[in-house]
């Protein structure tokens, strides 16, 4: 065998004995300097060119130094000289030199190296150096044969463009030449493959296919294996051109699998050449239609029969072996066969698919990690097939979930991928919940991937988009750092694009709650800010969710937010300030401060928003701050692109993500129908376009007009007023006026609601529905048909007449919400209207005043101290209000006594700047002894005239009462 020079041995030993990295690199530098000197020795006298080699070196020395260079290169040091010595060795006639030269050449030179050009001719002559056929057969490994091999190996390893152009003809010739030895054929095939990969379309497939057919009839399994590698490479580029070779391939497969015909030395642990079998099966995967009989040709029929027989034999006769190597080889073939079955899909025999599924089910539950890993991976491919297989996969859900918790990340990834692929509308909720639960425990390496996949699944299979919003919120709270921008942008898109139902209001309310805690993830703040800016107005009626409170909740995160979040917040603030007058004084100082921000974006936004009101007409401002139009639905979402980026084109997950789910198709159809209907309605109704420009749709081919955004502030004010006054107007637009009269006695109330037609036409199908709530017992009585909630039902309200609704209510428990009322009707033009309103039935309606002595008040006040029972909030007086003086305080006192129905406890108010009150909240519920349950309530308002602010504190026996009383007190004081 080849042996090495002592100098090289010593050098290696020196390096191994080096105690530190420095010592090693010093030794290397010394050696490099020495070699450089040796190589250059002949230069100065002989030639000026740096390329030339030193002819004075002996063969032994040259080889030794080149090997040293190779060794140094492998250690990671740069070797930038000596290439000419390498070329010298390649050019040598001595095999020992040539061999070293070629190995060094492929290690030290790269494809584009210009030096290659100088050696092309040598390589060519080595390539065509084959001797006479007669002598080739007898002598094993003649010099020429081996030299050819070396050259081929080098070309393959370097694979530069120049080499390919210069030499591919010779390589081809070697491959197909009858005189080439098997060794040369093998290497030529692979060399050619390498060249084709670097430079596709090197030759025409149709002309080359017959040569391959010739080679496929070779008896040498090594030649067959290499030929199959080449064929797979070629057919992968142009499958159609090699389709004619299928019978040859099937024939070889049949020989190996069915007849076990294989030279003894190609048995690998008793399995006939597994590599060749794998390659054959891989080739067949390029032709998913192979089993379809195109013609009645009997030979093609036999071929098909032989193929299914072979595949079925692989499937059924692979048994578990004790030897891990034997089992690896067999399973490698088996997995490739399953891949082929997956490839055939429904054109393949049913029983093969079932057999494959059964086997994979077994594999994914074994302990051996490799088989489990591959089982999960292959099952993901099988799960993608339509019809039947997906159902089969679902049976294994529990087993897959076990692998999701495996210690090995490779296995976990595959399990995640499989879960992703097997998910559909039936099991989506369960799988997504499992994944979300697992996310809490998952380590960082897999989290980003999980978050992305959960987000895609939740969107894809949500039958209720509210669930989707909830899921993403959970992702943000568990793993906010991995929720990339595309994910939360997608939430915004989906919420914006689905005005049907109450998704937008739901999203706004949920996000407001999510952003309420002082500490929450910045991504949550971003989504909340954006969604509230767009749809906050839908929930502003709800207690604790007014525009002002929306601002407060968002603004508490300002100091911990980065520039991007702040920019979003600023736009949201501008929208809030536009809608709610009371937000303007809160927002103005933020804008004023931000005008000096170092961040250009923030500076510009705040300056523009601040100046907007003076610069433009109110209509223009309204236009600027209108909700964003629906987003365009792209063919491929950003999430899918991200997934593709991570996993590549042919991943099962990517294919799955790109395929729209039933739920998505349904949503798309609804949206399209709604859009068509909207256009239709717009055409019908261009007279009164303003009224329905803000309309939203219910997805049933008809447009429903909602409450225009412009009237919302007035509506809120009317609602607040009504909470503390016995009668008034709740809602008014050009068509309809809703008036309310309400009176209470203890726990019972009598509410009359009037619906007046203000328009010039009949209102048809006029209906009112009131949501049931647990805390109120309600009896309803109304104009005939008014409470009939079916489409097409309802009563008609003629011009200038009213429909009437009478409600008798009894309160059963404390509450802080107002009952929702939905008003629906249709105009004579057929435009449907639907207004969600709230009845001003709030907790303070059921108060009975109590007058307490100062001592008794203070005693109860102290006894109710504690977090749950107390609510406190500070409210600023409205900007346009007069100074806070005694007269002002009298008005506030009147609100407390008359509006909130509290008894004034004047003994507790030594100065004019405080107001104390007490009341009992009466309910109709009975305790064990049969007495009505009552809740004692105390309130104190303290004024700070300098700061123009009031502090409202409530203490009651029940937390909800405290909150409800505080809320009513706050809005009433603001309106005072």
């Amino acid at each position: 065998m080849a042996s090495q020079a002592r100098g090289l041995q010593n050098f290696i030993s020196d390096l191994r004995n080096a105690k530190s990295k420095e010592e090693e690199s010093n030794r290397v530098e010394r050696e490099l300097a020495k070699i450089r000197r040796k190589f250059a020795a002949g230069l100065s006298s002989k030639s000026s060119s740096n390329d030339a080699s030193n002819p004075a070196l002996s063969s032994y020395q040259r080889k030794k130094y080149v090997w040293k260079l190779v060794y140094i290169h492998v250690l990671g040091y740069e070797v930038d000289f000596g290439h000419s010595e390498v070329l010298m060795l390649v050019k040598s006639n001595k095999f020992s030199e040539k061999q070293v030269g070629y190995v060094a050449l492929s290690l030290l030179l790269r494809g584009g190296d210009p030096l290659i050009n100088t050696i092309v001719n040598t390589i060519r002559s080595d390539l065509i150096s084959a001797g006479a056929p007669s002598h080739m057969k007898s002598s094993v490994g003649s010099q020429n044969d081996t030299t050819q091999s070396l050259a081929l190996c080098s070309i393959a390893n370097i694979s530069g463009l120049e080499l390919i152009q210069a030499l591919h003809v010779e390589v081809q010739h070697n491959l197909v030449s009858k005189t080439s030895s098997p060794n040369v054929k093998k290497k030529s095939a692979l060399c050619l493959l390498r060249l084709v990969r670097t430079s596709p379309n090197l030759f025409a497939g149709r002309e080359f296919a017959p040569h391959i057919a010739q080679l496929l009839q070779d008896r040498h399994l090594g030649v067959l294996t290499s030929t199959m590698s080449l064929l797979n490479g070629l057919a992968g580029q142009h499958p159609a051109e090699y389709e004619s070779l299928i019978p040859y391939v099937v024939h070889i497969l049949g020989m190996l699998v069915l007849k076990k015909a294989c030279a003894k030395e190609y048995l690998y642990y008793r399995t006939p050449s597994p590599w060749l079998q794998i390659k054959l099966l891989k080739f067949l995967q390029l032709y998913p239609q192979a089993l379809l009989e195109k013609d009645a040709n009997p030979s093609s029929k036999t071929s098909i029969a032989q193929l299914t027989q072979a595949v079925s034999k692989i499937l059924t006769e692979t048994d578990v072996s004790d030897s891990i190597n034997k089992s690896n080889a067999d399973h490698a073939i088996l997995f490739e066969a399953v891949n082929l079955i997956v490839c055939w899909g429904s054109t393949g025999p049913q029983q093969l698919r079932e057999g494959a599924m059964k086997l994979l089910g077994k594999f994914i539950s074994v302990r051996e990690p490799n088989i489990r890993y591959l089982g999960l991976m292959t099952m993901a491919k099988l799960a993608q097939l339509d019809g039947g297989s997906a159902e089969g996969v679902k049976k294994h859900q529990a087993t897959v979930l076990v692998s999701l918790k495996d210690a090995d990340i490779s296995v976990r990834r595959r399990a995640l991928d499989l879960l992703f692929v097997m998910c559909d509308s039936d099991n989506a909720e369960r799988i997504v919940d499992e994944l979300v639960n697992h996310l809490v425990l998952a380590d960082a390496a897999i989290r980003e991937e999980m978050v992305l996949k959960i987000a895609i699944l939740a969107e894809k299979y949500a039958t209720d988009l509210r669930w989707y919003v909830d899921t993403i919120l959970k992702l943000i709270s568990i793993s906010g750092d991995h929720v990339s921008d595309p994910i939360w942008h997608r939430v915004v898109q989906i919420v914006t694009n689905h005005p049907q139902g109450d998704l937008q209001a739901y999203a706004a309310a949920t996000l407001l709650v999510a952003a309420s805690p002082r500490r929450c993830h910045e991504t949550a703040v971003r989504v909340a800010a954006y969604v509230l800016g767009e749809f906050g107005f839908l929930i502003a009626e709800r207690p604790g969710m007014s525009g002002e409170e929306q601002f407060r909740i968002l603004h508490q995160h300002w100091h911990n937010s980065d520039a991007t979040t702040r920019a979003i917040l600023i736009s949201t603030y501008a929208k809030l300030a536009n809608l709610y007058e009371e937000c303007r004084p809160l927002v103005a100082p933020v804008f004023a401060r931000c005008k000096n921000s170092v961040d250009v974006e923030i500076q510009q936004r705040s300056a523009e928003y601040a100046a907007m009101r003076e610069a433009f007409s109110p209509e223009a401002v309204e236009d600027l701050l209108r909700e964003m139009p629906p987003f365009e639905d792209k063919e491929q979402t950003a999430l899918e692109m991200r997934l593709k980026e991570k996993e590549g084109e042919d991943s099962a997950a990517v294919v799955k993500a790109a395929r729209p789910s039933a739920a998505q198709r349904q949503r798309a159809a609804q949206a399209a129908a709604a859009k068509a209907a909207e256009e239709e309605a717009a055409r019908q109704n261009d007279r009164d376009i303003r009224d329905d420009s803000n309309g939203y749709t219910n997805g049933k081919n008809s447009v429903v007009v909602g409450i225009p955004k412009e009237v919302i502030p007035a509506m809120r004010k009317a609602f607040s007023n009504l909470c503390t006054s016995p009668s008034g107007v709740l809602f008014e637009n050009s068509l309809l006026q809703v008036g309310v009269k309400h009176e209470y006695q203890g726990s019972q109330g009598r509410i009359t609601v009037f619906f007046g037609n203000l328009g010039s036409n009949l209102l048809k199908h006029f209906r009112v529905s009131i949501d049931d709530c647990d805390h109120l017992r309600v009896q309803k009585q109304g104009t005939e048909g008014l409470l009939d909630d079916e489409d097409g039902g309802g009563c008609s309200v003629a011009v200038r007449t009213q429909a009437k609704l009478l409600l008798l209510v009894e309160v059963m428990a404390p509450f802080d919400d107002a009952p929702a009322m939905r008003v629906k009707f249709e105009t004579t033009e057929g435009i449907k209207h639907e207004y969600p309103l709230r009845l001003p039935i709030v907790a303070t309606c059921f108060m009975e005043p109590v007058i307490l002595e100062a001592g008794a008040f203070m005693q109860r006040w102290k006894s109710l101290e504690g977090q749950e029972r107390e609510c406190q909030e500070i409210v600023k007086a409205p900007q346009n209000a007069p100074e806070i003086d005694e007269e002002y305080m009298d008005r506030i006192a009147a609100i407390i006594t008359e509006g909130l129905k509290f008894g004034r406890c004047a003994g507790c108010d030594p100065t004019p700047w405080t107001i104390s009150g007490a009341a009992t909240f009466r309910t109709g519920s009975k305790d064990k002894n049969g007495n009505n349950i009552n809740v004692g309530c105390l309130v104190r308002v303290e004024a700070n005239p300098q700061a123009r602010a009031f502090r409202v504190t409530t203490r009651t026996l029940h937390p909800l009462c405290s909150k409800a009383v505080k809320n009513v007190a706050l809005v009433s004081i603001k309106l005072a």
Partner: protein
Amino acid sequence: MIKGILIINNHGKPRLAKFYQSVTSEEIQQSIIRRIFQQVASRPDSFCNYLEGSIPEWGSNIKLIYRHYATLYFVFAVDSQESDLGILDLIQVFVEALDKCFENVCELDLIFHADRVHYVLDEIVMGGMVLETNISLILQAIEDQARMDKKSQGMGNAQQAGTETVKQQLGAGTHWA
């Protein structure tokens, strides 16, 4: 195709590095070797032999298929075209070939006879493609080359270096399979 083959010892020292999809500089090569070692070395032997590693220089979707023998990691970085278990077997073939070639191969053989390791590998994998998996043919080719080598050197001025004395049994050898 096979993008690269590495043999790295337990301490992260590369004993063989073959890049079939070449990268631009030694520096990047070394950084790839380091990253591969970090990813592979952190996994206990009970884990599976596959790792969806991230080697951006070789494109996305690269899988590291490796086996750990005593003091050495044999790592093949492959793309999705290769059969996963097939490569695992190929590693076994490579190791068995080395074992036959060196008669109980150990890490020191790979250090002092890097040339022969390269010759063996070149008979198994060529340009990132599997060339031969039949161990006797692989050894035959190596022997042919050796014979040619001797012949061309005439009397063979090679000196058998004293590696035998330093050669230690490092847990490799017959227990490899």
